[in-house]
């Protein structure tokens, strides 16, 4: 029977490296996926995975056995991702809403409003999604990823990011607004009544 996380942590604390290895093998993919969403880069995501488990190993003594190891690891991964994003050179500067508004307005002004057919050009949408992601600040990106992809509550996000609840909320609001500004020109359609795109 596979060990529980709590049992593996207890053994790892006593120096059992195979127990820690079991934790790494169990959780590394989830950490990678989270890190990749947050950093947008597979190589950076691998670095985050390494940093996360290194930190977790050093802090095993602080882990409370009643807590959920995956959630605890999540928090470390989020912080490592934020640190890495902040340490990057300025090629990924966060954009103001004003910059994105100008971009959207320019498109509408020259009559380039995309037709529904353009929606089928998934590469364009992908590019917009990636571009919008890189326009977010590290905190906005982290908050959005945790809320939208990881399904964490605002309360959980505020704890993970070390923010007050209101600050976490506003990070999410800004992130969503920026993404809407970037993507809405591509997804706007005349028929808006009773749309059930998302459950």
């Amino acid at each position, binding site marked *: 029977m596979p060990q529980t996380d709590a049992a593996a942590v207890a053994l790892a604390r006593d120096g059992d*490296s195979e127990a820690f290895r079991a934790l*790494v093998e169990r959780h590394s993919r989830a950490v990678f996926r989270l890190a990749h969403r947050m950093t947008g880069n597979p190589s950076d995501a*691998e670095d985050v995975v*390494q940093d996360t488990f290194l930190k977790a190993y050093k802090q095993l003594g602080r882990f409370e056995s009643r807590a959920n190891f995956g959630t605890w690891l999540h928090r470390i991964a989020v912080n490592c991702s934020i640190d890495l994003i902040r340490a990057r050179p300025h090629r990924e500067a966060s954009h103001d809403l004003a910059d994105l508004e100008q971009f959207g307005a320019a498109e509408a002004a020259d009559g380039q409003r995309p037709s529904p057919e353009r929606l089928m050009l998934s590469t364009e*949408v992908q590019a917009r999604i990636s571009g919008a992601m890189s326009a977010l600040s590290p905190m906005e990106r982290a908050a959005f990823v945790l809320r939208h992809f990881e399904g964490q509550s605002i309360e959980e996000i505020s704890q993970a990011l070390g923010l007050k609840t209101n600050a976490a909320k506003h990070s999410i609001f800004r992130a969503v607004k920026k993404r809407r500004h970037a993507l809405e020109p591509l997804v706007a359609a005349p028929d808006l*009544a009773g749309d059930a795109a998302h459950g």
Partner: protein
Amino acid sequence: MPTRHLTDDELILHYYGEAAPVQEPDAAAHLEACGLCRGEYARLKRVLGVIDEKAVAIEPPPSFERTVWARLEPNLRPARRGWVSWLLMSPAPLGLAAAVVALVAGAFFAGRALSPAPAAPPDAAAAAAAIEQIRERILLSDLGAHLDRSQMALVELVSTGEDAAGDISSERSRAEQLVADNRLYRQTAEETGDAALSELLDDIERVLTEVAASPLSGSSRDLADVRRRIESRDLLFKVRVVSSEIRERQKTADQRQAGPRS
């Protein structure tokens, strides 16, 4: 029922089910009754729905857990510090060379101490500088050889055919040895503050670790991933450039050593 429209923030909270319990029924009722807000909400849902559909969740390769552990495990061991530990942990040629340096230094000072009538007071600073120069030349020579061996291994990996798969035990065994040596050079580069070299050695280490951690019969996908990693980071080009720089530094160090005698 509130007469004001829902703000963007309220719509976002409603979408994520994060509205305050007392406010949620009002928000839901308003959306039922107000076409304008319902339209705005539909636009929000559409955008977030597109993100759900299109956002790519990259899945790492099947060997990912193995590679993560191979890179991680050595860093979990307590680090040894100090010149003696470095000597003990060095790759064989470098360790032997460092031992020779230590013997030479010891003989030098012993000779000075036992000499009946020294011509001048012992110049400890000059002796230390001489030893440091010898050490640097040995380090450069050994690092250069390591980069040459790594380059050969990388070339072999890149040259493997697109659909190749099968027994990679020799590549794996070579990678295992190179990883161990590479790790030490990388740590030395980090400790001496040579960021560029450290970064290059880190890139090499990732590739070698992945190969060393591969199963004995590598799949074509595993090898393709390794090739992609080498090519996407221009690794071969960088190794050649740094090898060339190391050779220049070696020449300079040799000339410096030969200079006073000429």
